[in-house]
């Protein structure tokens, strides 16, 4: 396996819904910041890869206009996935394994605030049997949350504890007095509506060592998907996250920090269990998806945040996770190490 590392990461300064900037205006400073941190110009980058979803803006080929933010001249090798940017990073990593490409720029952007994201994401559901009913994302997640609570020892208190970890304004007891949004989910169990962009620069071997003091070396990256039908799988468990974590060797050494793409509190409980993340692992020091969940960007941010802990010297071994589809249908796990 060719050595590839995250050498730079940048993200939008705020993920609050922002009507002032369009996607290009939101993305451009983030891309430039990532390139500046890597000390590379776009002309020096070997491959450009992005992730986004046109349905967020309701405009076909919205991702093509985002190229204006990058400045791809002379024309560069470029590709796009209609997926979270974490999957774009995976594609770039694969390209770097097979091609003589030493560096890649990976970016993702999305403005969930343009439409009603709870309803827009209905379009990812089975178009014959499920989408015609228009269940919203909170309702779908709530089915999973109840399946977990009734199929395990976890309680609503455990869910509230996940939410309370990231906030100073409310205790677990206070959170548990709040009304349900979609029982057993309360507002703090659900992600905020967020707009945002993030960019990562990958570099291989000696280039990574040259341009980054402490590259975050990708030691394993894998993603696995489960059947789409909600009634076909055990929603209380994540077989795909467990398999991906095993395949990347997550358990082969202690993990200092894990960034999990859990948009709902109960999903963090499912993921910790699936990937065997015990008490010694710092979970989502960034605040995770409950603090900001820019759809299509959240997963890439997890990789960037986890890598940042290694680049800063705070962590030696970090795990990043990204998720796609309803109820953790698809899961990507990436293990990164210092030196």
């Amino acid at each position, binding site marked *: 396996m060719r050595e590839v590392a995250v050498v730079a990461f940048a993200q939008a300064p705020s993920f609050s819904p922002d009507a*002032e*900037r*369009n996607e290009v*205006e939101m993305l451009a400073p983030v891309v430039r910041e990532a390139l500046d941190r890597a000390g590379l110009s776009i002309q020096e980058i070997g491959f450009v890869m992005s992730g986004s979803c046109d349905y967020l803006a*309701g405009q076909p080929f919205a991702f093509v206009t985002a190229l*204006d933010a990058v400045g791809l001249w002379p024309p560069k090798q470029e590709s796009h996935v209609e997926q979270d940017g974490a999957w774009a990073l995976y594609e770039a990593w694969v390209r770097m394994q097979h091609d003589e490409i030493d560096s890649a720029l990976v970016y993702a952007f999305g403005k969930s605030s343009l439409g009603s994201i709870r309803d827009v994401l209905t379009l990812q559901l089975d178009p014959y049997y499920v*989408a015609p009913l228009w269940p919203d994302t909170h309702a779908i997640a709530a089915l999973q949350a109840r399946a977990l609570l009734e199929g395990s020892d976890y309680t609503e208190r455990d869910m509230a504890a996940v939410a309370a970890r990231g906030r100073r304004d409310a205790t677990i007891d206070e959170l548990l007095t709040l009304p349900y949004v979609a029982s057993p989910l309360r507002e703090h169990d659900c992600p905020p509506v967020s707009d945002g962009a993030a960019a990562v620069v990958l570099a291989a071997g000696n280039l990574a060592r040259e341009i980054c003091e402490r590259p975050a070396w990708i030691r394993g990256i894998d993603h696995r998907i489960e059947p789409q039908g909600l009634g076909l799988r055990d929603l209380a468990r994540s077989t795909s996250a467990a398999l991906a974590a095993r395949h990347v060797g997550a358990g082969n050494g202690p993990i200092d920090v894990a960034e999990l793409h859990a948009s709902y509190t109960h999903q963090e409980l499912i993921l910790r269990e699936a990937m065997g993340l015990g008490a010694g692992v710092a979970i989502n020091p960034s605040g995770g998806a409950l603090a900001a969940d820019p759809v299509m960007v959240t997963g890439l941010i997890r990789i960037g945040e986890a890598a940042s802990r290694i680049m800063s010297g705070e962590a030696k071994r970090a795990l990043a996770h990204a998720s796609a589809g309803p109820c953790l249908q698809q899961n990507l796990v990436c293990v990164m190490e210092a030196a």
Partner: protein
Amino acid sequence: MSDPVLGVVSPVRLEYTFSAGRAQSRFLRGLMERRFVGQRCGKCQGVYVPGRGSCAICGIATDEEVDVGPQGTVTMFCIVNVPFAGQQVEPPYACASIMLDGADVALFHLVQEISANEVRTGLRVEPVWENERRPSMESVRYFRPVGGDHA
């Protein structure tokens, strides 16, 4: 017994609030003043209209605003002969790519007050504005040949 079911109709309706962003908002507001506001790249000097806030060639922010046009030159065109749902103009009519004077990217608009088969590349055109001033591309009713340039 009864007819087989071969298909279903799945209606999708989603409501969005489109945001033009800063640069395009200034272009759209310029139209209310009957101006075409573009943006110049500080590096390659390319002028975009409307600007997007970023140079697609250099990948840097485009901060400088410049007025372009209002006259321009047809760089490409096509003649629409086929009716379709939602069509606003009776065919045949000409749609043209118009390079406003001072700009480096072309706008797409109708060319009228000339028969469609007389439209040609290089034709000099000018905008005909709607009476109502709105921050919308529809403020330009269409382009027409400058000073009777039909030749």
